[in-house]
């Protein structure tokens, strides 16, 4: 029998006070009423550690890095320990046949109850691009999802196809939701997602089931507002103070990064409030424009360093072609007009004063 959360806390030296504080944070993060906090705590304390199978497909392990990166045991880490991670390439000790056997065992033991976490996209153009133990990603996903209670697509690759899906998408990469149609799927996009968002979603799933999702399958609580709306640099945008380069005075003064291509205005995430690395910072605070990584196709949305208001196409060529085409058409039109006038002049019959009357 795996230890329950209170025992785990004891062994890790986490006080109950700190645990309750964490529950309060989670409650507010998930946009639940404050009165729900005791229920969250109770749910977490009494939750039976569910089995979790974590599948990694076309990914960079950044999402795993994100969720596990901790220089000290954190509550997030703890919560992670509160689940039974029965299969995870990167983290598990087993390898080869033993690893696959663990997955199959978990699927059998917890059929219909286990949680499937996926990071990475699935190549469907040519499934041979990514296989595990000779099984294509697609087959493994289908097989594993069949008995899952729900699927959490962690990271933008799993949620929306991500970088492998970027134009020209050589592997025919698709998101989990393109393949799995009959299970609840929670998308937790981000490249990578914020650790606490991942654990928050897991906590919510453990306590209240699948959270409220937006049109893109993201938990509304974490993806409800744009980064721009909550950005600490927003006042500079409003004042019209923009950094024009990465090393100019505006950049040093911390002005708005819009003109450097910041996608904050069209990107929904809690980066600006929750931040990263224990609330230390987030990309904009580090002086780099938001890339928009929580949004589908962020890699292809017009260039990272091109401001949102700048057209994304090859407009210079179009403009030059238009000038040429317009001028040629204008000359053509002008020639027709000239011909018309010249014809009128040629047909001019001199009028004398007795020609001014109509025949009556």
């Amino acid at each position, binding site marked *: 029998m795996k230890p329950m959360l209170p025992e785990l806390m004891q062994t890790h030296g986490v006080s109950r006070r700190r645990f309750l504080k964490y529950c309060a944070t989670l409650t507010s993060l998930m946009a639940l009423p404050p009165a729900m906090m005791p229920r969250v705590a109770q749910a977490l304390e009494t939750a039976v550690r569910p089995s979790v199978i974590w599948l990694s497909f076309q990914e960079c392990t950044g999402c795993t890095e994100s969720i596990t990166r901790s220089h000290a045991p954190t509550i997030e880490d703890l919560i992670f320990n509160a689940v039974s991670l029965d299969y995870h390439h990167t983290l598990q000790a087993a390898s080869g046949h033993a690893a696959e056997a663990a997955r199959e065992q978990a699927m059998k033991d917890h059929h219909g109850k286990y949680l499937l976490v996926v990071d990475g996209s699935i190549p469907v153009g040519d499934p041979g691009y990514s296989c595990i133990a000779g099984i294509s990603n697609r087959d493994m996903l289908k097989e594993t999802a069949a008995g899952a209670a729900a699927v959490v697509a962690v990271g933008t690759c799993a949620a929306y196809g991500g970088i492998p899906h970027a134009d020209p998408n050589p592997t025919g990469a698709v998101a989990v939701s393109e393949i799995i149609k009959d299970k609840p799927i929670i998308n937790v996009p981000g490249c990578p997602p914020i650790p606490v968002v991942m654990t928050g979603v897991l906590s919510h799933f453990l306590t209240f089931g699948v959270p409220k999702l937006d049109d893109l399958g993201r938990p509304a609580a974490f993806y409800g507002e744009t980064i721009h709306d909550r950005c600490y640099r927003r006042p500079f945008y409003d004042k019209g103070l923009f950094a024009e380069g990465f090393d100019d005075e505006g950049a040093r003064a911390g002005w708005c990064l819009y003109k450097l291509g910041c996608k904050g205005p069209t990107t929904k995430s809690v980066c600006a409030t929750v931040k990263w690395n224990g609330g230390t910072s987030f990309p904009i605070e580090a002086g780099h424009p938001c890339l928009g990584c929580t949004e589908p196709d962020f890699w292809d949305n017009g260039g990272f360093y091109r401001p949102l208001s700048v*057209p994304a*196409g090859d407009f210079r060529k179009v*403009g030059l072609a238009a*000038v040429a085409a317009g001028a040629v058409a*204008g000359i053509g039109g002008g020639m027709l007009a*000239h011909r018309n006038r010249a014809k009128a002049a040629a047909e001019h019959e001199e009028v004398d004063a007795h020609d001014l009357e109509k025949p009556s």
Partner: protein
Amino acid sequence: MNNPYFDLLMWARGPAFNIALFIFVAGIALRVVEIVALGRKRDLAPAKGNPVAQGLKTIFTRSVPRKGLVAYAPITYIGGYIFHMGFFVAFFLFGPHIAFIDGLIGVSWPNLSRVIIESAVALSVLALFALLYARMADPVRRALTTFDDCLVWLLSLLPMVTGYVAVNKLFGDPTLMLALHILSVELLMIAFPFTKLMHAVTFVMARYYNGAIQGRKGAQS
């Protein structure tokens, strides 16, 4: 999974912009060349003034209303000034727009704060409604009004309203509103060569010709 709003935004920023830009630029080039190509006969009467100098001067001086006329058409004049100035302030002095122009032709200049931009937009929109009122209520303007006028009115209003909504997140998805804002501008661009919006280019020629014709005679313009 796709975000349809993003797809729309990318379509607006990509293919739609290219289409609009082509129609806008080619249409203007066509119409300007067509006008110039018509030419004018050399005036054989000895000049009394300097037609070229006065033509050039009139391009600017005609921006000032002729004395006494403002009182006859106050809404048209004042509304017209406010609309044009508000539109120019919003279009040329808002940071993201300057970034747009910079991206397009590589020229940029300092921008104003959002409070000023949005005040200008608000005034401009109010002025547009005042002008619409004058167009409907005043017999001269009502009689002059064609489909062109109504269309141009709407197409001038939309970018300001959608821009305001997009920046202020009044309603709708921010990405969708930004896409709609860009699309509304593209509609304006597409309509430009076919409607009276052309005046924004040809007024320079018209004022020049007016000034030159008058200036040649030594008359004021």
